[in-house]
């Protein structure tokens, strides 16, 4: 790989100053998206700032109607955590579907949502679970945080510190996995709350999005029958070597029904 500088800060303040030390800098969390991007020269940072040693970025806790997960918490940890399983078992199921065991041992919540790959799983969950994204500078509602392909509300050098998921009455994630990459060809996260239903879709479009028509139909009748045949406009969806937009639109309906049945 092309050479770069490497910093191992112990605090958010030191991480911020290492990031702004000159040249192009990138934060590294689990590195399972960033390092492949550096190998292929899609990214060519001058400095990598490793967040692994920064205090206070891991851990899982429950506080009222929120489940808080630290940004550097790995998918493997979320997949086996008892608090997550007790509060939001749908999130446990989602974590188990990310990548493979080795990827889950390294990949982190914060890394995923800072990168915001359009086929990543967590963005659908954050949207459906009405999440709050806390950073070293402030806080965002998930609806404002995700801004399309690889785009977020984060400013340059801003660090995600934790995410607060609103605990639903029931939720589940259904995903049609790409068999090699294990990213979502389409993934749908459904969450039912006392005051309504939220549906997050990933993999289908240029970024994760909510599906208002599905939310309205499920709010009246939370059943797969209520959303059977519900159309999703393929005009806004992705076509690539793996699947066309019309196929993805159909698949979203299938995943939606699967998620509703599992919730």
């Amino acid at each position, binding site marked *: *790989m*092309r*050479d*770069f*500088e*490497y910093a*191992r800060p112990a605090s958010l303040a030191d991480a911020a100053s290492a990031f702004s030390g000159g040249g192009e800098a990138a934060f*590294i969390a689990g*590195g*399972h998206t960033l*390092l*492949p991007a550096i*190998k292929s020269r899609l990214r060519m940072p001058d400095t*990598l700032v*490793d967040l*692994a040693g920064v205090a206070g970025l891991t851990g899982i806790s429950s506080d009222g109607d929120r489940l808080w997960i630290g940004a550097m918490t790995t998918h*493997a940890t979320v997949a086996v955590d008892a608090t997550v399983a007790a509060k939001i078992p749908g999130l446990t199921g989602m974590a188990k579907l990310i*990548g*493979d*065991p*080795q*990827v889950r*041992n*390294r990949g982190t919540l914060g890394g995923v949502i800072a990168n915001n790959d359009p086929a990543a799983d967590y963005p659908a969950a954050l949207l459906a679970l009405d999440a709050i994204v806390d950073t070293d500078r402030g806080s965002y509602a998930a609806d404002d945080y995700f801004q399309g392909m690889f785009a977020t509300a984060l400013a340059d050098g801003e660090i995600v510190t934790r995410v607060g998921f609103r605990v639903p009455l029931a939720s589940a994630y259904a995903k049609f996995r790409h068999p*090699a990459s*294990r990213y979502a060809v389409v993934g749908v996260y459904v969450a039912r709350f006392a005051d309504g239903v939220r549906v997050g879709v990933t993999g289908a479009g240029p970024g994760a999005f909510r599906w208002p028509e599905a939310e309205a139909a499920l709010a009246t009748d939370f059943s797969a029958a209520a959303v059977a045949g519900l159309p999703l406009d393929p005009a806004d969806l992705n076509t690539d070597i793996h699947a066309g937009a019309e196929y993805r639109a159909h698949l979203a309906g299938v995943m939606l029904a699967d998620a509703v049945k599992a919730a």
Partner: protein
Amino acid sequence: MQTRLTINGNAQTREVAPATLLVELLRDELALTGTHIGCDTSQCGACNVLIDGQSVKSCTILAVQVDGKAITTIEGLADGDTLHPMQAAFKEAHGLQCGFCTPGMVIAGIEIVRRHGPDVDAATIAHDLEGNLCRCTGYMNIIKAIQAGARAMGQTGASAMGETAHA
């Protein structure tokens, strides 16, 4: 950059260039060539090593990122001429053909025991091998080998953290 590593029980501090992948350090600088590079794109798992007991693709982690951690490679599993129970099971169950994927499979198998215990079933093993590719065997004997290795680890009390006689 000064990096503290404990590799197969041997603690050392090395000067490591930041852009060095862990697998490059192991193979090119430490001559631990049992860890293989199959794809270099985080898919195949031939480069799996244990880092503090967790299996990780060593092609997708920098050597400087494992500062202060304990790494176990395939070379660190046997106790002299006595194979680790998981290695012995691969031999007994014919869990390899060309052998290229085997180091990563053995490492993944040991972590499967850590995660699921010695009585792990075949379906769970098959599911948890999704990060390891084999182009020869069709996987059936690998699954049998890991199941037999798991049972043997349970009987011998072998650690699933990867520590060995060296540790």
